[in-house]
């Protein structure tokens, strides 16, 4: 499958936690702009590891090596300043993690305050309202913007975290199983939200849940034991997977 004008190109990327064990093996993929791309696979297949290589999260831990090239709009992010990369690539985690000492408004603005970017008060209010609206949280929280983010429900907290990531206007949003800690209703809301968001931002989502990939992703990857086994149009993959392992995973033989 060929992707035209990809926003992100992953070229021969390997990630190893220890010298001889590779968690991600020679992955090549191009990511379509303004679409949702899902990464599926059983536990331990390297899907989160691949995702975390894209915003250079592995650098926080000693001994993890990332090799290859990851091009974001033609620039190799592995050779850029990590802080610059992370401003451009947002991340949403498995468990909602709003900053507990910050209010809802401060959480949305956290990207700015943590980067030392000064924003005028009116601009600040604009950013807060716009981003809370785009995650559908504005009407629910507009009367309590100064309340702690941690008082919200799990689903609301996760949407707040998405708003926090979006506030910096990233080109790419990485989501690492963002709904696995949420109930079906909250999950549904976030999936609907992702559909709306893809107009503004390209989304890559790691998911354990293949029906979620089927519902929301235009393209899907299947990873197994660190390898990218198959990468295709989601419809094609679910109806006509080429690899035996993908077919077995999709019918639930393992995973």
């Amino acid at each position, binding site marked *: 499958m060929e992707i035209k004008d990809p926003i992100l190109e992953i070229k021969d990327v390997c990630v190893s936690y220890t010298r001889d064990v590779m968690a991600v093996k020679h992955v090549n993929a191009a990511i379509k702009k303004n679409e949702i791309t899902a990464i599926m696979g059983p536990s331990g297949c390297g899907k989160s590891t691949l995702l975390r290589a894209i*915003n250079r999260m592995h650098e*926080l831990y000693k001994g993890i090596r990332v090799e290859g090239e990851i091009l974001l709009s033609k620039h190799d992010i592995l050779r850029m300043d990590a*802080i610059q990369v992370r401003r451009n690539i947002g991340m949403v985690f498995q468990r909602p*993690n709003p900053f507990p000492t910050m209010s809802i408004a401060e959480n949305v603005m956290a990207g700015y305050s*943590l*980067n030392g970017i000064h924003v005028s008060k009116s601009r600040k209010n604009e950013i807060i309202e716009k981003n809370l609206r785009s995650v559908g949280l504005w009407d629910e929280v507009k009367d309590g913007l100064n309340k702690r983010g941690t008082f919200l429900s799990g689903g609301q907290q996760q949407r707040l975290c998405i708003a*926090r990531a979006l506030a910096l206007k990233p080109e790419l949003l990485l989501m690492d199983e963002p709904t696995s800690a949420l109930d079906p209703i909250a999950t549904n809301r976030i999936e609907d939200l992702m559909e709306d968001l893809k107009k503004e931002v390209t989304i890559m989502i790691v998911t354990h849940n293949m029906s979620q990939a089927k519902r929301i992703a235009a393209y899907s990857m299947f990873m197994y034991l660190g390898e990218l086994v198959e990468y295709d149009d989601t419809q094609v993959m679910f109806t006509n997977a080429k690899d035996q392992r993908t077919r077995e995973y999709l019918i639930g033989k393992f995973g």
Partner: protein
Amino acid sequence: MHITVCLFSALTCIPLFAILGKVLYEGASELGSTFSVIVGGIVGTLLMLIMATAVAVPIGILGGVFLSENKGTKVANVISYMTDLLQGTPSIIIGIIVYIGVVIPTRGYSGVAGSVALFIMMLPLIIRSTEETMKMLPLSLKEAGLALGGSYPRVVFKVLLPSAFGGIFTGILLAVSRIIGETAPLMFTALGCSIVQWDVRRPVSAVPLLIWQFFNDPTMQNMVWSASLFLLIFVLFLNIIAKYFAQKWK
């Protein structure tokens, strides 16, 4: 089994209640009249505590953050080991060291020398409590901060430390209540003083020093208990606040 446990826990309470009972019984009636006598001690204790805390808190917090963020590295191991050593050093030895290091070079006992001794006693307590609190923070907080492009120091100061505030504050209060009754290190450094002394360059008094003086002076022995009661109340008060914050923070 159950009964044995209850019995032994009751036994451990006996000394505590014996002390509290005796101090209350003997000291309560004199508390008011003693206050005017120990005012100098209260002033000295507070002055030295404030100075020691003001220096120990920033250094201790930075040390604790360093240890929790760099665990396993050589430097952290050395600092961690030295913290343990310092914490285990008998307070009288700290007093002698400060006597040699501060009192002799400055040619005199002083409140400053006393607060140096208290600072040395507080430092390992604050380093340890900060480190423990920081270790309890979920890793995802740090990751979320860095994933937004925050620089490492900004994430530490704007996300991690504020999140750990309750635990660190509790640790500071407990450290203060732990050193407030220290007597030995002050004997070699602050010395004591019979008037209310606000000048910390001169020898100052402290409540535990006064208790020692009252004990040695046959005419003042009745005030041993009331001064002790005062000190106990103060420590108890600090502990209750610390508990309250610890609970609230959780």
